[in-house]
């Protein structure tokens, strides 16, 4: 039982990673009806950006140029990384998706995949194959809640993830740009006719998703401080599955799917041999999708696909 409670926090932590990345997949899908296959690699690049930002800020702090405490550095790193990561997302959109707006959907999927491979190779070529260690931003403190040990990192990740999701929700439901995004996901063809700048809104959607992936990258780097260029492939595809599980294009679904995948994976790893983790986890996903083909919160769409 204690074991289970202990694993619960691990599951929540991994669920936050998955949910934050899955949000990027879902938002793009809800507007363009296609999956941004480069999103996993955007997450990877964002984590590297976070690594550089954090290292630079910590260096400045050590040199007494900017006398910041650790908390301030963490917040600054988070904000700067999210800001820079959003430009990575916009660049991906400009290169891989904008020129292919009217092309068959599958062609855009290929350019997305290729941009992803390009980013992996570029990072590998620029930084070498040696693994980078993410700097220690906040020294870990272990709390004891009843019989369960929890680090401050896990709590921070969870709280920040929920705060970001709340912000996103407020942004989408309260602002004008958010309204435009909702309108475009409702009807892609008519909304531009009403004077809403389609390309700007789409670029903004990519930027938002990438910023969230950047936040996930910071939390991931703090929890597992070893970065390598292929981490985006591994975690990105899983977040993609989480987005599907929640329902394509559903923001709420992406969050639920992310946490659900986190729980499934951690619980399988906790109870069965860890090599079986992927096997059982994906079998469960397959089973869920067999009974709910559109995911947990996805709507059955009748729109003719733009294939």
């Amino acid at each position, binding site marked *: 039982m204690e074991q289970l409670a202990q694993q619960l926090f691990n599951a929540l932590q991994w669920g936050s990673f998955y949910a934050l990345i899955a949000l990027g997949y879902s938002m793009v899908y809800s507007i363009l009806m296609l999956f941004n296959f480069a999103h996993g690699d955007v997450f990877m690049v964002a984590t590297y950006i976070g690594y550089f930002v954090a290292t630079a800020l910590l260096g400045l702090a050590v040199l007494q140029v900017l006398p910041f405490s650790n908390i301030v550095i963490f917040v600054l790193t988070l904000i700067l990384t999210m800001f820079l990561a959003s430009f990575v997302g916009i660049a991906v959109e400009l290169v891989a998706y904008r020129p292919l707006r009217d*092309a*068959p959907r599958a*062609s855009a999927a290929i350019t997305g995949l290729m941009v992803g491979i390009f980013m992996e*190779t570029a990072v590998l070529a620029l930084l070498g194959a040696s693994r980078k260690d993410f700097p220690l931003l906040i020294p870990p403190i272990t709390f004891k809640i009843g019989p369960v040990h929890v680090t401050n990192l896990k709590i921070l990740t969870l709280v920040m993830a929920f705060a970001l999701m709340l912000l996103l929700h407020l942004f989408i439901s309260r602002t004008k740009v958010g309204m435009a995004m909702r309108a475009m996901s409702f009807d892609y063809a008519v909304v531009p006719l009403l004077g809403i700048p389609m390309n700007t809104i789409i670029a903004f959607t990519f930027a938002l998703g990438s910023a969230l992936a950047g936040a996930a990258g910071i939390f991931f780097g703090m929890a597992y401080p070893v970065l390598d260029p292929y981490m985006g492939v591994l975690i990105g595809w899983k977040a993609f599955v989480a987005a599907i599980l929640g329902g394509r294009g559903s923001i709420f679904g992406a969050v639920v799917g992310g946490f659900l995948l986190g729980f499934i994976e951690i619980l399988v790893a906790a109870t069965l041999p860890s090599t079986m983790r992927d096997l059982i986890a994906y079998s469960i996903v397959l089973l869920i999708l067999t009974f709910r083909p559109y995911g947990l919160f996805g709507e059955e*769409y009748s729109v003719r696909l733009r294939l």
Partner: protein
Amino acid sequence: MALRKALTPLLHWFRTRFGHVPVGAWLLGAAVAAFLERLLGPDLAYLLGLGSVPAIFGLSIILKTPSLIPSVLVFVVLMYVIPTLVVAWLSRALFLWWEEQLSVPVYVFLHVLFLFLVLYFWSQVDPYRLLVLRLLGINILLTLSLNLVNGWMGEFSVSVAGFMSVGAYVSSVFMVWGFVHDDVFGPPVFPEFLAPFAFPLALILAGAVTAVTALLVAVPSFRTRGDYLAIITLAYVFIVKSTVENLDFIGGPRGFMNQPEVASFTVVFIWTVLGIWVMWNYVTSILGKATNAVRDNESAAEMMTVDTRKVKIVAFLTHAFWSGVAGGLYAHVLGYINPSSFDLRKSAEILGMLYLGGLNSVSGSIVGPVLFMFLTEILRPFQLAKWLVIPVILIYAMIRRPRGLMGFQELRIPFLTRRQQAKEEARAYGVTGN
């Protein structure tokens, strides 16, 4: 522009002189050139200071050491261009006569035979060429089988790597159990000289098992359309990889080796041609037309008495079968497989070849892999930077031609279209007979 202006007279000369040379004569010329290269190539390369015979027309040599450009040019002109031109020019009459005399199947068979001779002689010079050509054949099979689902049926499947994995492991286990002295499977069950004859059996078994596993995916996934298949097949790839990693008797993550050397170039060539032939017949048959109808409008197809469920499942299982066969060939060409060689990157590579070549096109599925492999092989000297150049080229190609190079059209083979034309004219004028 200046280059085009300079080339125009040359092109004009070429067209007036060689415009009427039939395809078969070109193939014969290339075969003679390849044979000559096999005889004289190493000596000529030594004379020109190239060391060894340039592997792929010297293109990677040029990229690596530009100072060797003149020698490479001389080699290519002497070894390939002149013999091909001369023989093609001389044998054109023979082929024109054959075109009149022979029936279409025999004439097509003759072309395939000459193509085989070209590639066979060409691959004998260098083991590297041999490997590349065999992998090319496998990639053509994979692309073609994927095209059936992604092109003709209009779904999006990414399970090629998973199917390959199943086919590779099933055929490897069968061959190693039957014909090789192995630590796990013990002494060979059958005499070893039977191995080449049992290999087709192993491949068919591999394809069949792959198709059965695909059935598990296909049955639930064709209730809905759209991206659902993409997700299910994605999960399939993960599940297969994870399953193989957990099966210890086939090596788990360490991989599986000791496959007998039965996948020679001839074997791969025969399977590739067989695959192309089967696929061509499939897509030009009523079943292929029905698959297209399902893609364009499923409800309308159903109204026109197409059994959409059956059509979709047959197409998907054919895809699985041929991917499994190609996986079996792959395992025996390399002689070593491990689960991580069949990950999503492999699928992405095949998808790249498919969309470069173009959907809904048999010739596109041949052009795509040929171009893609040509690019990857000539860029080999760049090592890591290769994977920076290839995505850029592919992205550019997709932006310029979003439907791929040959999407929704077929390459016209002159002698076949001429025959077709003559037949149609004869029909139009009311002339009967052949």
